[in-house]
């Protein structure tokens, strides 16, 4: 049962398939950290990103690169629309975070239903075939999807952390995350930073959905379910802690897959909710690792209190 090849295969495949979850979780955690929004409407960004790529590649037989570009453009466009016509307006009206959350939830469902009307409900994939050829590396089967997905994810995550640490806009994002009012006092345009954050989330989401849709079937409602994993990773990893979120997404994927070697497989999905429950009850600020972050400290938005944002 615990043979090395089995464990190696589980580790490798889980690592490869967790790439999409990592990107979804990072996008969600970033918006929560900087914009202080539980962006459930990320599901809408994911949905339009996937169906844009599906339209270009799956329906119009366009090249893969054009499908990728379409996914990125559609996700970013959705993110910009959401920020300018949704979150920014609600922020100016001083809407409570619960109201913003409900708005995001409604948008995600609305987009799912619209996409359902246009594309139907049949599960779709970007490429006609779900099967990726496999190469055996020792005892481990490595599919042709695995390595590019891992490489793209590593580059994207590194780019986000690099952007936050070294770019002017990234540093402003951290400042806004730390204290939005103080940041504004020092001349940082909060609205612009919120928009940039959503654009970065859109880029991550577009990439993630292109990767996901090239190996799995997607239905209009699928993004909402995928997002639950990202939310779980964000909470367990520690709200506001981007590194923790990324690490949690990877670990959760591996633990879920490896768990079937120890527990009945029907408990596999339940495990995520057990972790989530335990994290919320015992570690409401997330499971914190020893402090050594890539980004500067930002106070975590509260899960419990309804914090109105100052002008």
């Amino acid at each position, binding site marked *: 049962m615990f043979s090395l090849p089995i464990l190696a295969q589980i580790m490798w495949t889980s690592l490869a398939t967790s790439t999409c979850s990592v990107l979804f979780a990072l996008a969600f955690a970033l918006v929560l950290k900087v914009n202080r929004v539980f962006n459930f409407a990320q599901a809408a960004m994911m949905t339009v990103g996937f169906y844009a790529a599906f339209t270009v590649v799956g329906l119009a037989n366009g090249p893969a690169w054009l499908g990728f570009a379409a996914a990125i453009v559609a996700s970013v466009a959705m993110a910009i629309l959401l920020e300018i016509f949704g979150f920014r307006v609600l922020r100016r009206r001083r809407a409570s975070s619960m109201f913003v959350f409900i708005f995001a939830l409604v948008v995600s469902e609305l987009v799912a239903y619209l996409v359902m009307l246009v594309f139907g409900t049949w599960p779709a994939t970007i490429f006609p075939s779900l*099967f990726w050829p496999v190469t055996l590396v020792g005892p481990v089967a490595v599919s042709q999807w695995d390595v590019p997905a891992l490489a793209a994810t590593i580059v994207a995550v590194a780019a986000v952390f690099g952007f936050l640490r070294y770019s002017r806009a990234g540093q402003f994002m951290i400042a806004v995350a730390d204290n939005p009012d103080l940041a504004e006092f020092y001349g940082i345009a909060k609205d612009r930073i919120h928009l940039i954050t959503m654009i970065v989330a859109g880029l991550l989401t577009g990439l993630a959905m292109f990767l996901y849709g090239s190996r799995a079937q997607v239905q209009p409602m699928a993004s909402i379910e995928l997002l639950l994993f990202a939310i779980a990773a964000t909470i367990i990893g520690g709200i506001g802690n981007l590194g923790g979120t990324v690490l949690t997404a990877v670990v959760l994927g591996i633990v879920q897959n490896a768990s079937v070697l120890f527990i009945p*497989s029907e408990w596999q999905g339940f495990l995520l909710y057990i972790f989530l429950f335990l994290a919320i009850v015992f570690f409401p600020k997330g499971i914190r690792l020893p402090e050594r972050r890539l980004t500067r400290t930002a106070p975590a938005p509260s899960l419990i209190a309804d914090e109105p944002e100052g002008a």
Partner: protein
Amino acid sequence: MTLHRRTLLGGIGISALAVPVARAQSAAFRFGLAMPLTGGQATYGQDQVKAAQWAIEDINNAGGINGKPLAAIVLDTQADAQTGIQAATRLASVEKVPAFVTAWSEVVKAVAPIANDSKVVELSVGANSADIAKLGDYVYTTFPLAAVDITAVARYAATTMDKQRAAVLYINNETGTVAAQIYRDVFTKAGGKVVAYEAYDPKATDWTGTLLKVRMALPDIIHIQGLVADTPQVIAQMRQLGISQPISSYSAIYNPKLIQQLGPAANNVIATSLAPGVDNSPAVKAYVERWTKEVGREPNGLPYTQYLYDAPYLVAAVFKSLDDKKIPITGENFRKEMLAIRTFDLPLTGKLTFADDHTVSKRVYLMRVTDGAWTQLAVVD
């Protein structure tokens, strides 16, 4: 919160989708058609409703029922129990139809009390949960329940294919668990041994751990009881992990799209069909050609649409018999007359006889992917 919102949307959908034409035709013989027109299962539901509507057109073009038209009140269930209850309540209490057709096990079960209390015949056409046989006096199925095709495929694997060790992989919902148990019991009784019996979460997107457990058990054949959305992905991942054994499943995956999605990895996949195919029946061939001509493609879930096409013919036969005998059209009379006729000869699925336990038995067509195409492997009576 999601459930309530969906329920609300479903309610709006029901109001919008009710066919007012039927009410205008007061002389028409009316029955209900409660199917998923929106939601995750709408791809199947919409094609099934189209098939039923074609049948109604064909019946009416051929003179209707003693010169009167047949009409359907079409309502959306979203394949959801709550929305299905709203639809069935409306059909029984407002539209006052004597019978209605519905599908999806969850919906069929949820609306059964309404059918029984209102004395309206509920015809389940496409759901295959074994429990449907025990839902009450007014609930009947025209579609063979899971035991029929799962029994056939399990017995065929153990006897004709001479497989000794089977692995069973099933989705952890009611459809999956019940069918998996049937496969395990039949395969074992036929002399085989089930060496792995693994469930997976309906929301799973990666099955590596479970599949490796199956691989370690060294089965001769693997039976997958999943849904149309997940089964192709499970098979793809299975082949990617080097699991090359023959795979069997059931009617949900009998679809040309599976071959497109899996390419060579689809070879040696066996599915069941509970209706004759184009090679077995000229009527089915003409029906598929009609789809290609009018819609530009084959229907999603061809066998299911065949049963839906046939359902209005069954309903029309009962109406005609009642009309011939000048018996009032009520649910009670509809049920009595349907059981009095009992055997119906239907255009696309052939002869149907209601058994005493409210079920039907049909031939099972085992289909296998060979060289990139579905070919008939065997017919099991």
